[in-house]
């Protein structure tokens, strides 16, 4: 008669097949009766048919934006920004919006499994007692020096817990890493801050109060550091100041989304950003009539113009803009730092700020404050440190490797050889929520909760000058038989006893978190005041964290940045190819968005490509190479090769090809992978295999990156030269835009 649907299944957020039918009766014939099961005991804050809202933290990247999640009858319905959180002030990016698609992703690791390093997710579940015992044994029976922890970029409670644990037993400190931090060149920024601003840390550029922004490759509107905060700053710069509309100039070899918002996009050859900055500094100094500071004195403007490919007049024009601006601001980032001379570039660009004398001032270069319970700035590992870490793995001196929140097999350049190094580690335990490449290559997966099911806190690294700690709490009860990694470690430590148990004397994760935020109790300079731990914790949950009400300000001196000799050497490019290779993080997918179907379906802002990877190439160049849209080309560097379809991109330097990072997964669930379809009518490449066979969706540009670093140890990801080869195949790229309307495709002449 009717499909039996129980509300409890909704509650468990789980698995009732009937749920589908109930919601989907939407416009179809509704079955006459559906059944409902009320709560056995209603949570006191819940009303029937009314939503409950929980404040938590977005875990899609390390920026630490606050979220408010709307839940209804135990299901999470919608994630929105937390208006109180100073990092995002109620806003989110697309990835934050789609975070629920991770929570309810059909490809989650549903129970602890013994993986035994196989290709697909193992079917046999373990129970958590055995799993916890296994962790306890691993911690207990292994020489502490031979234990290693690899974690995600975010500086969160788990990092603190693992740090406490490793400190207690004398194991090496946990290593934090992520593809985003790699492409953001955080180490370079920190080092440059140390050299120019006099203090290590993440610089923060106060866009909102500037009236002229000169960005050198910084893709701050896409994924860079804290895109939501920077977008807010950008909007304020443009429209927020009643006096004048802010002006923006962007130097980059391809027109990124950020460049597209600039009033002037000036293409240049990769690696010459620092020189251009110096040349601009010299021109500005000359134009304003002052003496040319030491840092700019050695540069030859004419030479820079030739090297970078920017006409002299254009440099002079930009210099005049700077000279006339009230509050100019130069931002180093993106591919300007991902060069062998990246650090020098960063310093040169910061020197421009020094010239404008805006260090530590509104509209200038600032230093992000430390989070409330942070003593020093812990930056994530740079690529060179990762290389050392891999060497350590290879040497066999690591017996047990714990991996949480990062997928290095996918995220690290293949040339670094992480996948092979993993083979040298006897026991690899992954705490992955999703069956990603690294998890599948592990011995065990002890799945952590999804971020929305978990407790925690996260330090906001940058994006606000208010020192902020963003709190996280479960908004729904766990979907599957997963367990919080913090709980697993605490329990394992208790089982192991001894020093371990002493280091983590907590009943559970929440107790640990309380111990870490206890230092804030009674502080009056924050978003709330609470006298004791229980009320503090509940306020912490309710507000979504704790932050200072006032912005921090550090007095920074510009002298160090100007009065020095700065040698910006020519960037060194690896490989013999004819094209500079510029990978960039896909603005919609980020490093880990590929398994969320709606992120896949979001068109890339610039190319409007969905669900795939493309190789952006200048139409003129393509014409010379006899390439057309959708031709599959092989991109070959000395480190490797990938195949992807060509997109004739009108706004890219003719000598440069660009590829987005984020696709090309060989695991990570059905949406990150493509499947052979029965219908082959749109001209996708026919592939061998059975219908339904998965194969990588798109390609991963990290596969062609070599192990080259800049002076600060960050990866010189834009420091490769590649050649391209036509394969003769076609891969129809799904674009939202009309090829006819936008490019005049199919019509005799371009345009119309």
């Amino acid at each position, binding site marked *: 008669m009717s499909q039996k649907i129980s509300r409890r299944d909704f509650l468990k957020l789980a698995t009732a*097949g009937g749920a589908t039918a109930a919601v989907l009766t939407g416009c179809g014939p509704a079955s006459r009766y559906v059944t409902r099961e009320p709560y056995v005991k209603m949570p006191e804050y819940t009303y029937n048919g009314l939503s409950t809202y929980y404040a938590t933290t977005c875990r899609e990247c390390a920026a630490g934006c606050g979220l408010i999640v709307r839940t209804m009858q135990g299901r999470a*319905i919608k994630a929105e920004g937390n208006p109180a959180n100073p990092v995002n002030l109620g806003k989110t990016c697309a990835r934050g919006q789609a975070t629920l698609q991770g929570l309810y992703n*059909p490809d989650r690791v549903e129970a602890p499994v013994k993986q035994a390093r196989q290709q697909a997710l193992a079917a046999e579940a373990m129970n958590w007692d055995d799993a916890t015992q296994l962790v306890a044994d691993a911690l207990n029976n292994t020489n502490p020096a031979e234990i290693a922890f690899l974690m995600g970029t975010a500086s969160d409670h788990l990092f603190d817990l693992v740090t406490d644990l490793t400190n207690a037993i004398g194991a090496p400190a946990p290593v934090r890493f992520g593809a985003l931090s790699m492409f953001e060149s955080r180490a370079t920024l920190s080092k440059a801050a140390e050299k120019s601003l006099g203090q290590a840390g993440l610089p923060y550029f106060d866009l909102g109060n500037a009236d002229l922004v000169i960005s050198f490759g910084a893709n701050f509107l896409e994924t860079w550091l804290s895109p939501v905060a920077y977008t807010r700053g950008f*909007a304020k710069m443009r*429209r927020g100041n009643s006096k004048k509309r802010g002006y923006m100039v962007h130097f980059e070899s391809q027109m990124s989304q950020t460049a597209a918002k600039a009033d002037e996009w000036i293409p240049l050859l990769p690696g010459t950003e620092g020189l251009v900055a110096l040349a601009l500094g010299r021109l500005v100094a000359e134009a304003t009539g002052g003496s040319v500071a030491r840092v700019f004195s050695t540069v030859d403007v004419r030479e820079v113009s030739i090297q970078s490919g920017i006409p002299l007049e254009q440099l002079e024009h930009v210099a005049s803009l700077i000279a006339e601006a009230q509050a100019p601001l130069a931002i180093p980032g993106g591919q300007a730092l991902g060069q062998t001379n990246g650090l020098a570039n960063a310093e040169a660009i910061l020197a421009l700020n020094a010239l404008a004398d805006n260090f530590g001032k509104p509209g200038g270069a600032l230093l992000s404050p430390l989070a409330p319970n942070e003593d020093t700035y812990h930056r994530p590992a740079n690529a060179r440190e990762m290389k050392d870490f891999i060497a350590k793995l290879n040497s066999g001196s690591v017996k047990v490797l714990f991996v949480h929140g990062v997928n290095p097999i996918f995220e690290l350049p293949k040339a670094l050889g992480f996948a092979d190094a993993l083979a040298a580690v006897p026991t690899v335990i992954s705490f992955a929520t999703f069956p990603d490449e690294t998890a599948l290559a592990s011995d065990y997966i002890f799945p952590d909760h999804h971020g929305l099911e978990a407790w925690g806190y996260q330090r906001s690294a940058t994006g606000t000058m208010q020192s902020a700690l963003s709190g996280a709490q479960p908004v729904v009860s766990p979907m599957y038989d997963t367990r919080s990694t913090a709980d697993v470690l605490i329990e394992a430590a208790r089982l192991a006893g001894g020093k371990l148990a002493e280091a983590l004397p907590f009943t559970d994760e929440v107790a640990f978190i309380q111990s870490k935020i206890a230092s804030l109790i009674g502080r009056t300079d924050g978003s709330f005041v609470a006298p004791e731990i229980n009320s503090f914790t509940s306020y912490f949950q309710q507000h979504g964290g704790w932050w200072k009400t006032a912005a921090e300000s550090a007095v920074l001196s510009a002298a160090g940045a100007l009065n020095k000799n700065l040698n910006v050497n020519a960037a060194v490019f690896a490989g013999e190819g004819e094209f500079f290779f510029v990978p960039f993080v896909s603005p919609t997918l980020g490093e880990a968005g590929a398994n969320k179907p709606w992120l896949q*379906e979001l068109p890339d802002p610039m190319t409007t490509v969905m669900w795939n990877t493309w190789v952006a190439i200048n139409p003129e160049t393509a014409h010379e190479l006899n390439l057309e849209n959708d031709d599959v080309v092989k991109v070959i560097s000395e480190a490797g090769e990938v195949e992807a379809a060509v997109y004739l991109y009108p706004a890219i330097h003719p000598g440069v090809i660009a590829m987005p990072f984020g696709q090309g997964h060989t695991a990570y669930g*059905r949406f990150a992978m493509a499947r052979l379809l029965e219908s082959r009518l749109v001209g996708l490449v026919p592939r061998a295999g059975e219908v339904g066979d998965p194969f990588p969706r798109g390609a991963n540009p990290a596969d062609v990156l070599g192990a080259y670093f800049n002076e600060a140890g960050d990866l010189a990801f834009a420091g490769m030269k590649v050649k391209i080869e036509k394969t003769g195949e076609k891969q129809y790229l*799904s674009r939202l835009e009309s090829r006819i309307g936008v490019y005049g495709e199919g019509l005799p002449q371009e345009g119309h």
Partner: protein
Amino acid sequence: MTVDLNLVGAKGAIAEAAEGKWGMSIDQDICTGCQACVAACAMENNISFVGEEDAGYGRSQHWIRIERFWEGAYPEVKATPFQPMLCQQCGHAPCEPVCPVFATPHSEAEQLNLQVYNRCVGTRYCANNCPYQVRSFNWRDYHTIPERGNMVNGTLVFPLHNQFNPDVTVRRRGVMEKCTFCIQRIHKAQDKAKSEGREVEDGEFTTACAQACPANAITFGRVDHPESLVSQLTHQKRGEKHLEELNTLPRVTYLKEG
């Protein structure tokens, strides 16, 4: 204030009188094209994703899309300002009269173009007649494509369905859909205000896209209240409406550069 457009005729100088109730302004100067609004809209309104093949064939279900064109050639090439395009909730909508079954009626109460999913029979005339091309059709039951579910004890289970917003109908195949100006939020806010015995205040609630927009480029509110933020933005000099010459009386104002 109600204007019967059928009586006044399509070509009268009624634009001002028919300004409508709810309106939106989109500042193209600060829109960064980041797609947050697109994602937010999809999450709020149970919009289905269609997969690579169908998305490439113009069947994507986006209720809001961000348009971008090119001007000039390298190196003087410029991308035109990102232009979010969504249902303009026309006061004199071309989609409305053509529906044979009144599935696209005009809401006299809210001055919106409604789409009544359960009444729609799928002639797609409205979508054809929409000069903004912002309507999307459910070409199949995208939500229940078997590959999107998991087999659990012999039943097909779709974990993604847990996310469905209960305030918005889930559409099945053969039904037209489009941006509703988040009418569920309008109703909720009105209901709340009414229960508290007051009027809905400006900024008390907003649409999912405006809520998400990191640049605050989208503003939503009452265009018939001169003191509301959206009214003030709308009446700026740089405000422009799309295809106004067709006398559709769009309710979305685009603020241009400059």
